[in-house]
Structures are given as structure tokens and as C-alpha cells.
């Protein structure tokens, strides 16, 4: 390929996922970081020393509204998108979700990079648009500091608890970690009730070197040891890196809800 403008990717190549659900109707995606400029004036120096303080991640997601249910609204209010019964979306039920986008190559044969924002907590959105426009729902919220990866992409597996449970895939080590980590994020889940009306209580825990092994085994003792709120854990959601070929839907993460 000639080194022309085709080197530069278009953002339509980003597959946006929220808790494992492929969002096929997103048309606004603006991940960013809230920052504060720092300026230090020092005696004897004509120019100040400067820095930027990175506070937290911010993300605005806009989706075209559907006639059917909007999976993001279900997820940010702690409800299963698979539940076809009438749903209520209210502020009291808002919860945080993990959001990521995997970037496809030009031929859509594999993912070549990604960005990941954990703990995204948007406010409750409402539809907008003029009468003749397609209805849009725009969600804005804050989350953890985002992270980007080149040459690897995010997958998620939801595994039932046990001593050391194989998640069925071999994670790619998180670059730059020592000792090596094999997950980008891990959530402890306590699932009660039966799908599709199950209730999932979640707690995100810091990833430790022994939590997810090089072979892709999830060690629940490592997760339970870090819990501060949940007293019972039935599952774990592991967000990890992969470098394999294929794109969605051939390559798809687990979904948070059954």
C-alpha cells in the first residue's frame, strides 16, 4: 500500500463495546481525560515550570435510538438487555460500566488497537432531536483514567467461581507490567436470581499478578482477598488483552448478563 492518506484510519473502524455488548448504533464517541494545568513560578526563573494533572476519564457516547431497547440504558441501570419485559430507567438505579473500543484494520480481518475506560458512570440520558431527525440519546459521564493499547485488543470473559477456573482463552500479557499482569481489569460479581431478570452486584478489584494466570486461569482467592463490599462472589468478569485474528461477530467478548 502506498503511503498516502490511507495510512490514517477512520473512526468508523472502532467497534464500541459496553460490558461485552457490541453497540451497533453509536455515532458519537469522545473519550478524553479531565486535566488541570499546573504552573509553578519559581524565583530566579523567567519561565514557569508547567505540568498537567490528569484527574479522571470522561466519555460521551451518542447513539441513535431504536424502536427496540437500547442496551446501554439497560446496562447503566443494572438491568439485563435480554429481558424483554418492560423496563424502567431511573436515576436511582444508575451504575458504572466498563466501555472499550477495538479498532479494526483496513480489511476488517483483525483488531489492531483499542482503548479502554473502566468505571464509566454516565448520567441518565434522554432522547434529543428535531421531529424530522433520527432520535439520538447522548450519554456523558466520568470514569477511570482510560488506557490505550497498540497491537492488542480487549476481550472479556465471565467465569463462575471456583478455586482456579479456566476462562477458555489465553490472555496476552499487559505490556509494561512487572510482575506481569494478565488482565486489564477484573470485577467480582455476585449474581442472584435467574436470567434474564438476574441482579448483579459488582465490585471492581485491583488486578494482582496471581489473579489471572498466564494460561488463563482465574484464581478466585486472589479476588476475594481484595473485596471490601461484596461478601459473596458467584462469578468474575475478566477484561483482558488478545492479539488474535478475526473481528466481531466472529470474535466476541462474553456479555455481562447471561
Amino acid at each position, binding site marked *: 500500500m502506498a503511503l498516502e492518506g490511507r495510512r490514517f484510519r477512520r473512526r*468508523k473502524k472502532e467497534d464500541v463495546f459496553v460490558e461485552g455488548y*457490541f453497540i451497533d448504533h453509536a455515532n458519537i464517541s469522545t473519550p478524553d481525560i479531565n486535566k488541570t494545568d499546573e504552573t509553578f513560578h519559581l524565583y530566579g526563573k523567567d519561565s514557569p515550570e508547567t505540568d498537567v494533572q490528569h484527574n479522571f476519564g470522561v466519555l460521551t457516547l451518542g447513539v441513535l435510538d431504536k424502536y427496540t431497547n437500547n442496551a446501554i440504558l439497560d446496562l447503566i441501570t443494572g438491568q439485563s438487555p435480554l429481558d424483554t419485559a418492560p423496563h424502567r430507567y431511573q436515576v436511582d438505579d444508575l451504575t458504572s460500566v466498563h466501555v472499550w473500543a477495538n479498532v479494526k484494520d483496513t480489511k476488517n480481518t483483525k483488531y489492531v488497537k483499542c482503548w479502554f475506560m473502566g468505571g464509566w458512570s454516565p448520567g441518565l440520558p434522554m432522547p434529543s432531536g428535531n421531529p424530522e431527525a433520527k432520535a439520538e440519546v447522548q450519554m456523558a459521564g466520568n470514569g477511570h483514567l482510560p488506557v490505550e493499547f497498540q497491537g492488542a485488543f480487549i476481550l472479556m470473559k465471565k467465569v463462575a467461581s471456583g478455586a482456579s477456573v479456566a476462562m477458555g482463552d489465553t490472555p496476552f500479557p499487559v505490556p509494561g507490567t512487572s510482575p506481569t499482569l494478565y488482565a486489564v481489569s477484573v470485577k467480582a460479581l455476585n449474581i442472584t436470581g435467574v436470567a434474564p431478570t438476574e441482579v448483579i452486584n459488582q465490585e471492581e478489584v485491583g488486578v494482582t499478578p496471581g489473579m489471572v494466570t498466564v494460561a488463563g486461569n482465574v484464581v478466585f482467592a486472589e479476588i476475594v482477598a481484595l473485596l471490601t463490599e461484596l461478601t459473596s462472589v458467584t462469578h468474575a468478569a475478566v477484561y483482558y488483552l488478545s492479539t488474535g485474528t478475526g473481528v*466481531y461477530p466472529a470474535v466476541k467478548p462474553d456479555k455481562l448478563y447471561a
Partner: protein
Amino acid sequence: MTLTMQRTLPNIVSSVLRYLKDTQYTVGPDTKVLSGPSGFFTDLLLFPAYPDDLTKIKTPILALGTTELSKFDPDTYGSATFGITVRLPLYGFVCGQGKPGTSDSANKAYRDKLLSDLVELFSQDASNQGIPLFDAVSKQEIGEIEVVHVSARALPVNAPNIDADRYKFIVEIDAAYTSITSQ
């Protein structure tokens, strides 16, 4: 790689023809279809293409021209939806009304009524409820197309000695179709 096509453009043409043929509407006390023996315009013929020879036309004709792709919008992340807006030109030729030699007013009145009915049909019913989209292969209804814009105007006369050329008009319909993938 296997590509699955939906043959959207010809499906839209045949679906609009079917819509024009089957849709009933009410004017005053009468509820009828557009054309045919039991329609508002009994001698109106629906053509799937622009007529080859205007000199041969003796009765009013509505002819669908070639579908033009007006807009293509891969406007979602992941390019998950396939959405197009097509422009359908619908040409009308009105002739054969009234008595020979005094037919101008009758042809003009016929054209104005037909043009008005088409505009209201597309701008009110089809833009609100959509036009059922049928698949030419399976003959099944596979979705709907939504009329997003309509324009209509009379066309100037080029050859006044040809009856069908004297009272021409065009209705242009912008129809949007989106194929939505599932999550």
C-alpha cells in the same frame, strides 16, 4: 469472503410501484386506489421505466425512472448499519382527456389533481408510515422504506405537437432504507 446482497435498488422500485397500485386513499366521499377501473384515475397506467416513445402515448402514464443513489451513510462506529437514501424520479405524462382540440383544460385539471394526490400520498402517508419493502426474490415483506423528502413540479413543454409532452410533471421522492444488524 461472502457478500450477501439485498438488491435494494430494484426492490425499492418494485415496492413503490406496488404501493402506488395498492394504496387506498380518501377524497371527499370516495375511498379508492390511485389507478385502474376502480381507481380515482381510471385510465392511468403505471410504467416501471421511462417510456421509449412519447408519440405512442395516448393515455396518462406514471413512469418510474432509474433509481439514483442520493446519499450513503456509514455513520456509526463499527460501520454496523447499512443506510442509503435513494432518489426516485416519478414522471407523469397526461394526455387524452376531454374532446380533441379542446383538451387543454381537461389535461391540465387531470395533471393537477394527479400531482396533488401523489404529493399528499408521499409527503403525508409514506413519510409517516413508510412504504412496505418487498423482496423481489422471496416476495416477502422485508422491511420498510421511509420517504424523507418529496419535491414535485410541472416540466416545460419541448414538443407541443406531441400530446404526451404538453402536460408532463415529475415527482422526486427521497427514500431512506436502513438495514439494521442485531446486537
